[in-house]
């Protein structure tokens, strides 16, 4: 019956949606809750765990949890850029690991050049680490645009390649001491992962900065608009004169740089660089973006939503730990929450379009 498929689906599309919008004011209220659902869930989580554990809502625990969130949030913000264009980046965990090893190596044993070993200051090392992430991201972008490899495959490949390079860097070993020596002028790497300013960890300040910049870029710049256009309808974007390939390469570079930064924060916190740093973190990052309402099909999503998604995941898992739920159950709960998030996302889309139809 393939003959009739086309007509049948057209008819279905044209038919008015009798769906959930029979009572408009109720539907509008439901839509409001659905739109802010990540925040609602976050508040409910805090209330719930606060009620059963007296430690949960203490200032020190909140700060600790937020610090845990920071690393995942930075990763997730980078991945959000890619997902908004309709792509995906599975390599961010490995990029974090590679950046960690590069930075660790530079701090621990320096850079061998003909005639001796060069040491860079901690700040320069951090910049080099981020540059490495950006470079790997650029390779992802080029593979996706020039060779037309599906983003899933291209970045899956990079997941292995970057992790392999991280292991090759030390032949599988760990760089155990990153504190540096004053004579080499490379102390201070611990500042970004360990220290606090005004009682708040530097990592959290960095997350706030990254999020603020990302919000401005996505909502207030022509480049941000182009990201949404590419993800919403690539053919229309091309016809509007948008250099789609450049936009795509740029988002992978951003994702790589964010991943590297997250890897460096993690390394600084741990005080050592080992090649398995941030393994499987890409899944947490994607989960945070999806939880925050970013559509995997592209064109829809917000940075704030992603940050909120990262908070939900982080506060949920730390809460489960605090009340003594086993790690196995934690995994089950996290998975269920992610799928639930997508279901509510779809409900929101349906409600939104049926309300739009009524008002037009």
């Amino acid at each position, binding site marked *: 019956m393939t*003959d009739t498929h086309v007509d049948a689906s057209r008819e279905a599309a044209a038919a008015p949606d009798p769906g959930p919008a029979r009572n408009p004011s109720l539907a509008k209220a439901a839509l409001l809750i659905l739109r802010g659902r990540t925040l609602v869930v976050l508040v409910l989580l805090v209330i719930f765990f606060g009620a059963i554990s007296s430690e949960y809502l203490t200032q020190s625990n909140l700060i600790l949890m937020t610090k845990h969130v920071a690393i995942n949030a930075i990763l997730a913000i980078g991945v959000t850029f890619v997902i908004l264009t309709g792509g995906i980046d599975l390599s961010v965990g490995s990029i974090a690991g590679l950046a960690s090893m590069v930075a660790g190596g530079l701090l621990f044993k320096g850079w061998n050049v003909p005639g001796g070993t060069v040491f860079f200051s901690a700040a320069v090392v951090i910049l080099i680490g981020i540059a490495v992430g950006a470079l790997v991201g650029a390779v992802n972008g080029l593979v996706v645009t020039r060779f037309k490899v599906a983003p899933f495959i291209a970045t899956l490949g990079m997941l292995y390649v970057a992790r392999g390079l991280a292991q090759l860097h030390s032949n599988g070993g760990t760089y155990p001491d990153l504190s540096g020596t004053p004579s080499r002028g490379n102390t201070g790497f611990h500042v970004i992962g360990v220290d606090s300013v005004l009682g708040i960890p530097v990592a959290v300040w960095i997350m706030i900065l990254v999020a603020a910049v990302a919000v401005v870029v996505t909502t207030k*710049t022509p480049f941000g608009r182009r990201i949404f256009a590419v993800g919403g309808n690539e053919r229309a974007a091309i016809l509007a004169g948008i250099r789609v390939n450049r936009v795509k390469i740029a988002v992978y570079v951003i994702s790589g740089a964010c991943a590297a930064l997250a890897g460096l924060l993690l390394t600084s916190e741990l005080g050592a660089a080992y090649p398995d740093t941030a393994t499987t973190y890409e899944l947490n990052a994607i989960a945070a973006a999806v939880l925050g309402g970013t559509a995997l099909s592209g064109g*829809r999503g917000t940075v704030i939503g992603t940050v909120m998604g990262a908070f939900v995941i982080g506060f949920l898992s730390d809460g489960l730990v605090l009340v003594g739920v086993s790690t196995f159950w934690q995994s089950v709960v996290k998975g269920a929450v992610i799928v639930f998030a997508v279901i509510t996302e779809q409900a929101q889309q349906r409600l939104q379009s049926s309300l739009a139809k009524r008002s037009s």
Partner: protein
Amino acid sequence: MTIVEARGISKNYGGVRALVDVTFTAYRGKVNVLVGENGAGKSTLMKILSGAEQPTGGEIFLDGEPVTFGSPRDAQARGIGIIHQELSLFPNLSIAENMFAGRELRRGRRFVDAREQRRRARAVLGRLGQDHLDPDAIVGDLPIGQQQLVEIGRALLEEVRVLIMDEPTSALSSHEVDVLFDVMADLREQDVTVIYISHKLDEFRRIGDWVTVFRDGRLVAHESMSRTDTGWIVRRMVGRDPGSLYVRNSSKTGEILLDVRNLSVPGAVPVHDVSFTVRAGEVIGVYGLMGAGRTELVECLMGMRRGSGEVLIRDRKEPEGTVQARIAAGLALVPEDRQRDGLVQTMSVRDNILLATVARLTHGGLLSGGAEQKTASAKVAELAIKVPGLSAAVTALSGGNQQKVVLARALLTEPAVLLLDEPTRGIDVGAKAQIAALMAELAARGYGVLFISSELAEVIAMADRILVMARGRITAEFTADTVTEEALVTASASESVLEASS
């Protein structure tokens, strides 16, 4: 002898009357040709006869017996098969697998009887005179004409007494058309009734026994083919007064804005050695059938396809051929398929309007919300776009207003020449008249306007100058004073013109 009779059939889609009291007869063992412009109602009637749609009113008789078809399966069970204009084959499967897709022969309960399928597929291919085709050949590897035959073969697997073909030759080469017509003649010998929808006058006159003409949802003529000629058919297709609905552009023409020289575009639908000019204040229509290369031509002009030849815009050669360069040089395209190529469905009306020019509305690198709002609302007012609000989803607009959103975006790039690919497709008559008025107004403001149309009446009524394309070439050029329907149809269909020029 009558086999199918549709009596007093009406079909309404919402408020649109697609068919009005149509009484149609198909004769047994004959090739019954249906002609009419796009939207004349022929395809709708065929959907009703094949069970894909139900009529709003009227009755269908098969062999004098009243029948109702609730689904295409019902119609198939009564021996009515249909082949659509767009092939519905699986390119990744073999001929035999395609023929039995969805109704696989079984061995036992679970296993596909591949051998029997192959045997029957071979038998059907033989009946179509295609013994040389291997039932295991992958359909995607076959030329389009043979794919068409596979599609026919699939219909013939069932006991088919009436075979409906909706423009089956639009993508075929002339040799493939000959093969198809031989097959149709054979089917006629085998007492199969063919109902054949076509635009191509020179083709269907060779094969048809009866011709039925549709216009505006009504059946306007029904005659034995031998008692008609091309002029008779065209006059009935077009009707008397196509011009009254549309505003004609009457502005003075100025300097040449677009000069295309020897443009060729390779590809599945190639364009060969096309040259023309567009002047300021001119509205130019490009008429032709589907697959004539019109869309390929404008997409190449717009930098979306690579081609060879020269393109001069405002007397300046534009050799780069990228979309950005062509926009900067002064071209803008409103594409044929708004949903696929025009709109970003996830964005608001405002963001869609500003999509191509948003970089101009920044203040210190950041977007200025006020400037965005002002620019977008100015265009909404200028083009009289009906919107619930600038931040409304663009998908909430009607087709005509969506079209205007894409047009607004194109105008914001400050083009010299606007290219519009089928600007009136899929919008109602009132919106069509508005688009026509808009094109005339834009021409009066000094733009050059080039639009593509498949509708005779429309192109004749709106264009100052008409270029006719067939098989990738410009086969004729008319001015508003010299054009006739017959000449247009002849130029768009005739292969003799083509062969003489190639």
